[in-house]
């Protein structure tokens, strides 16, 4: 019992200490001129869905869930957003070369098709980010058209 008590206290103290490490937030709240939606003529249905399903991790503005107030959850999210933005940042779309746009679009199509994106760990909480079969097809065909227009 004593051992349990000590462990509980250590865990508690650690839990308290890590609360004082802030994370850097991904909240710019502006739409840059380089944004995917600005430079492309995206149908509004697709635009809205992409913003809900992708922009939390693939843009400079994340709308954070309540548990981002608590460590270590905030670290976990920070990591994900960082990684997501390095892979693809919709806010910087027009800064990509055509070659990279082509690569990005290929990956977007592949990963949406296979259901890899949006990630299960994300849609678990963000149920509205799940792509219905219908919208999934529209997004994919839109991305295909965009990809073909690069050539």
């Amino acid at each position, binding site marked *: 019992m004593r051992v349990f*008590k000590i462990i509980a206290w250590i*865990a508690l103290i650690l*839990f308290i200490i890590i609360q004082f490490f802030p994370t850097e937030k991904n909240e710019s709240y*502006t739409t840059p001129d380089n944004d995917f939606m600005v430079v492309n003529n995206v149908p509004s249905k697709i635009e809205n869905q992409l913003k809900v399903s992708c922009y939390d991790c693939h843009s400079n503005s994340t709308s954070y869930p309540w548990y981002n*107030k608590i460590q270590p959850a905030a670290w976990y999210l920070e990591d994900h957003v960082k990684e997501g933005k390095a892979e693809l940042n919709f*806010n910087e779309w027009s800064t990509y070369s055509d*070659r*990279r746009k082509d*690569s990005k679009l290929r990956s977007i199509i592949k990963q949406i098709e296979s259901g890899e994106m949006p990630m299960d760990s994300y849609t678990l909480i963000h149920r509205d980010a799940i792509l219905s079969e219908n919208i999934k097809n529209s997004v994919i065909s839109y991305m295909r058209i965009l990809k073909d227009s690069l050539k």
Partner: protein
Amino acid sequence: MKTVKRSLGAMALAAITLITVSCNEGKKNEATAPMSNEMHQDTMDADKDMAMNDSQDAKAEAILKDYFNLKDALVGDDNAKAKGLGNTLVQSLKSFDMSSYADGKKSELKDIMEDAIEHAEHIGESDIKHQREHFKILSKDVTDMVAITGTQMKLYEQYCPMYDGGTAWLSTEKQVLNPYYGSSMLKCGKVQREIN
């Protein structure tokens, strides 16, 4: 048992207090700077001074050498080896020096390298199915690079119509050994073009 309950209670209480505190704290953070995708840019600029045509060709040959090693690992269905070689290729791509090329070529090479580095990085950390998907685009990047830089080597551009709607790659051998299927369809493909 009582003490355990008490410490658990204290823990919960402390947690609640903290959540409230950090709630207030979180509000005052400002926007983060946009992330840079051009981390390799500096390395390239740093090498600028030693621009000589010979050393550049050597760099292009180094990229090709690493590319072919990677291709052989994929032919051999060797995921772990391909990971390592993907990372090796990232390094040779990053150290490529394009400074003595004309501006138009330079920007094209920059685009090629940026894209190729990303695919090589993914190959360095993916399962073999993904490695092959990235190798497809990487092959296009490397082929386009060779069109600009040229090479001393004799190369064969090979083509497999079955993989992902038709896919090409480069080889130093005339004989077809398919990196996209490995042992499951080793001979699928044909030579579609000879370089040099």
